[in-house]
């Protein structure tokens, strides 16, 4: 499973690089990049850090941090 997650994270990183160079509107580029970043953070938290198996409080704390920070970054950029 961790190998699959690693490959997905690598591909999403390359996607992030290329989305920034596309002709999409700035708003769409930022939304896609922030969405991909949020997903990558959750993958790292759940599968690399192994928090998907711990008590929900820790998962909520980590989810809240990433959701808050990435949402506010989006607010500042859009």
């Amino acid at each position: 499973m961790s190998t699959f997650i690693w490959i997905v994270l690598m591909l999403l990183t390359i996607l992030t690089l290329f989305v920034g160079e596309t002709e999409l509107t700035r708003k769409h580029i930022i939304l896609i990049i922030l969405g991909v970043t949020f997903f990558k953070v959750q993958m790292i938290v759940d599968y690399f850090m192994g928090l998907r198996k711990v008590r929900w409080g820790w998962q909520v704390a980590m989810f809240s941090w990433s959701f808050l920070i990435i949402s506010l970054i989006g607010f500042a950029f859009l």
Partner: protein
Amino acid sequence: MDLNMNTSRHHLPGDLAIWIFIFAELSVFGILFLAFAFARKYNLEMFNEGQLVLVKTYGALNTLVLITSSYFVVNAVNAIKSNLSKYCSRWLFAALFTGSIFIIIKLIEYKEKFAAGYDLDTNVFFMFYFILTFFHFMHVILGMIILTVVAIKAHKGEYSSQNYTGVETGASYWHMVDLVWVILFPLVYVMR
């Protein structure tokens, strides 16, 4: 005590203290990220021009390197859970090798920026660029010191499938270093 913690399905990986430290670190990085994002909002032209100077490929390569390093650390934790301390040690040294690549790429990047005349005093964008990336750089160094200690102990057979809290503690810190860069890369290098 360790045995009970490690065999429970719901145990927190590693020592509780490292998680308090991780959340403290994430709070500081979160504030720095937001400071960058909102400073950009009021200095849009300066930030967009400054970003053009950065080499996105370096940032992307370093993201790939840190993700791979984190993956090696996951394999190290899985190895020690199977009581394979030598494999655990090898995976950790592989993670240290990839961590070293990150350091080299970052130093090349800094050297190019300084040679081109960019530093902390250039403007607000470069102040944030150097503070954010160097603060993260110091965490990579600390993470590598922690992983080195854990790798040596694993090599000496000081961990086992019954006692691997130390490996998980070092791993958790290293994943935090990776996680922070996963946000830093698009924020500083890509989004405009």
